[in-house]
């Protein structure tokens, strides 16, 4: 399999995630779609790492996974905080950053 197959597949998954971020309203699902986009980036990084025969891309993918885990933890904490304050779980109504 040539590298272009993997890169095009990664672009496709990234665009599915982007469509989800733009069209869904629940912040939970938006976080899931962000995960999709980050994983598509990981796939491209590892595909290029395979193409060049260089392992630096794999270490970079590992760093992306660390950042994704942090982002998930913070995002889910914010969602739990919204639920505690009985705010609507909807990004359209949460358009102001006020406590």
């Amino acid at each position, binding site marked *: 399999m040539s*590298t*272009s197959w993997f890169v095009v597949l990664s672009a496709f998954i990234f*665009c599915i995630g982007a469509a989800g971020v733009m069209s869904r*309203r629940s912040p*939970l699902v938006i976080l*899931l779609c962000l995960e*999709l986009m980050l994983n598509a980036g990981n796939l491209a990084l590892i*595909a290029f790492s395979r193409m060049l025969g260089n392992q630096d891309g794999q270490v970079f993918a590992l760093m992306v996974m660390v950042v994704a885990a942090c982002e998930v933890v913070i995002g889910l904490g914010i969602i739990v905080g919204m639920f*505690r304050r009985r705010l609507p779980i909807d990004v359209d109504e949460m358009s102001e950053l006020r406590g």
Partner: protein
Amino acid sequence: MLFEQILFFAAGFGAVAGALGVVMLRNPFYSVLALVAHLIALAVLFLLLRADFIAAAQVVVYAGAVMVLYVFVVAYVGGSDEPLRPEAGGLVATLGPVFALALFVEISIAVLGSSLGALDTRGAELGAGFGSPGEIGRLLLTKFLLPFEAASFLLLIAAVAAVLLARKRRGLEEGPDAGGPGGSGLDAALRGATGGRTR
């Protein structure tokens, strides 16, 4: 070679189906389960690309730990079925898939029209230990030592921030006299020591 192609198309189909499931399914709980399937299919693709350690970490860390966190939060918040199409308006929501399709076409043109000759080859010849845990660990502790330490600090900060975000704030639930902007951590600790929890 044929086996590799079969595996690529099976795993790629699984990954795309999982991604579509995340976006299309109404119940957030099913979306999380679709994401787990997507991540496992992606791990198979990583194995095809000779990234053994990343594939194992993907299954253990992502599909294991992070998704359990998601399941807990969805069960706590209560996955309410939302309508896929917002009833009125939502110009962004209707134009979103169109933008995404345009983005895909653009990236595909950029990749397939690229003059990078190595894109159409199978890639460089690899050594025996390419992508093994030993090689990745050696890189993490020599060449990428500083990013490794920075990542550990980032994880620590995120853990502390999650505890701060998700703790109970009694001041907000008991009225304006208990909390307020001046309520410090010591104040909250004193209140916690003297009075019981209201909820």
